[in-house]
């Protein structure tokens, strides 16, 4: 069974906050849900499927369904870190295609800034996971795990810090038009490579922002999408893939996008050359570069050349990416950037991106996310969406 054409994204909402000291986590989820349902022209009474991931409090769907007063007949708490929400869209489409629900609500929220979390530099202990005794004592952090990918990429392919910097430069060109973006100043390659080294070879400006907030999506059956007064955003294809250390045969040069990407392209029956806009997970600059290669926008090892000279800047480059400023400049709510990747892709298809960054005739887009860590184990989720 294919999900191509079986479901549509009817509602999308990005919470405007970037620091939520005065809000609870559940409240943020509910505000995002309300925003996305209003965007779709639906109410919570219409929702019969609910999806959330590890950012949800308590028992996930049980806690939040009860808190929000939802009445659903399908739920899913697939947890693949920041890529969860792309995978939720695909799972929602599968559930709709098989008649398990008709209006699926997906929410994400978090408040790492309000909680003072050292997101990038403090080792995280994932409890009784079997890998923990063999990794946690060595102080793996978010940033040094991605930094090791960059080190290896530079060693094998000659990728440079200046090439990586172009990814931040492109994001900053887009963020200047987003009044809600955390970092709105346009930066140069020199600004990025002259910012302090956090963990070699990644500089401060190679890293994404840390923000509170969240977002939500409403995925609906075709007949419901057509009954709503919103542009039709069709789900055309999806792929998901886990990648880990493969029993010690560690290879940091590629990501799970090498598997989720081709699956999504095959289901959508399109190629990377057909894509007009791409939302690419951007926890760090290296994350973008590796995923672009793995998704087939350029050959493996050619990512550095591909991203250089403004090739990702809307209006200038061949592949406009993350036109909201992405996680690198705009928003990375709950340290999970997958939700905002889908939201900006929906804006582009609807023609609702900022006019300065809106891609003309944008009828086919890709959104891709990574969750967990490229340095250890991660989940990749790819979506291909079409304006009907």
């Amino acid at each position: 069974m294919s999900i191509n054409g079986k479901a549509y994204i009817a509602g999308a909402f990005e919470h405007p906050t970037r620091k939520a000291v005065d809000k609870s986590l559940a409240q943020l989820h509910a505000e995002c849900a309300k925003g996305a349902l209003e965007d779709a022209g639906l109410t919570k009474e219409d929702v019969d499927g609910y999806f959330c991931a590890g950012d949800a409090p308590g028992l996930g769907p049980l806690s939040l369904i009860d808190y929000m007063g939802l009445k659903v007949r399908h739920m899913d708490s697939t947890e693949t870190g920041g890529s969860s929400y792309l995978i939720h869209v695909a799972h929602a489409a599968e559930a709709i295609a098989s008649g398990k629900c008709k209006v699926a609500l997906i929410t994400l929220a978090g408040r790492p800034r309000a909680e003072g979390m050292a997101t990038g530099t403090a080792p995280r202990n994932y409890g009784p996971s079997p890998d923990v005794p063999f990794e946690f004592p060595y102080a793996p952090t978010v940033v040094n795990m991605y930094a090791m990918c960059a080190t290896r990429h530079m060693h094998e392919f000659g990728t440079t810090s200046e090439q990586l910097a172009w990814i931040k430069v492109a994001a900053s060109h887009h963020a200047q038009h987003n009044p809600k973006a955390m970092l709105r100043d346009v930066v140069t390659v020199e600004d990025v490579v002259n910012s302090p080294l956090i963990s070699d070879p990644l500089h401060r400006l190679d890293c994404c922002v840390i923000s509170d907030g969240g977002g939500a999506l409403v995925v609906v059956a075709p007949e419901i999408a057509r009954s709503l007064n919103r542009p039709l955003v069709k789900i055309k294809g999806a792929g998901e893939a886990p990648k880990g250390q493969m029993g010690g045969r560690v290879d940091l040069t590629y990501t799970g996008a090498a598997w989720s990407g081709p699956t999504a392209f095959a289901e959508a029956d399109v190629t990377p050359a057909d894509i007009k806009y791409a939302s690419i997970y951007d926890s760090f600059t290296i994350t973008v570069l590796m995923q672009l290669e793995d998704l087939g926008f350029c050959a493996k090892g050619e990512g550095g050349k591909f991203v250089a000279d403004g090739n990702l800047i809307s209006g200038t480059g061949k592949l406009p990416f993350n036109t909201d400023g992405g996680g690198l400049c705009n928003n990375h709510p709950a340290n999970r950037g997958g939700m905002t990747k889908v939201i900006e892709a929906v804006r582009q298809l609807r023609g609702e991106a900022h006019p300065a960054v809106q891609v003309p005739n944008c009828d086919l887009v890709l959104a891709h996310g990574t969750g967990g860590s490229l340095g250890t184990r991660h989940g990749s989720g790819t979506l291909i969406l079409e304006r009907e």
Partner: protein
Amino acid sequence: MIAEKRTMPAPTIDPETQEYWSAIEAGKFLLRYCNACEAPHYYPRTICPHCGSDDTEFKEASGKGIIYSYSVMRRVPVPYAIAYVTLEGTDISMMTNIVECDLDDLHVGQEVKMVFSETEGDGPPLPTFTPV
């Protein structure tokens, strides 16, 4: 910048890996091998993650290797080098720290050898590496 000694938390030990940690307490580094597919793996499991056989056993490894990748974490009170080291004669890389070294003089492909680093409390030491 010379690496300072960093306080390392002790690993949590479960029944599946007790033998591995006991060997480390005795100064030996063991690598888990599968007798069915003959491949080593890391971190150690009773059931081979490559082929699924439960016919696996520990063998002592040389403790030599080369740096597959590394990064020096700088924006912390005690900077340190995290790395994956590929173990000699295998295609297996393990996460570790490079210690007793100049943090500014590390490179991919560098030859390293295992040294055990103390952990907090009564826990076993950890296998770490230092440049040859």
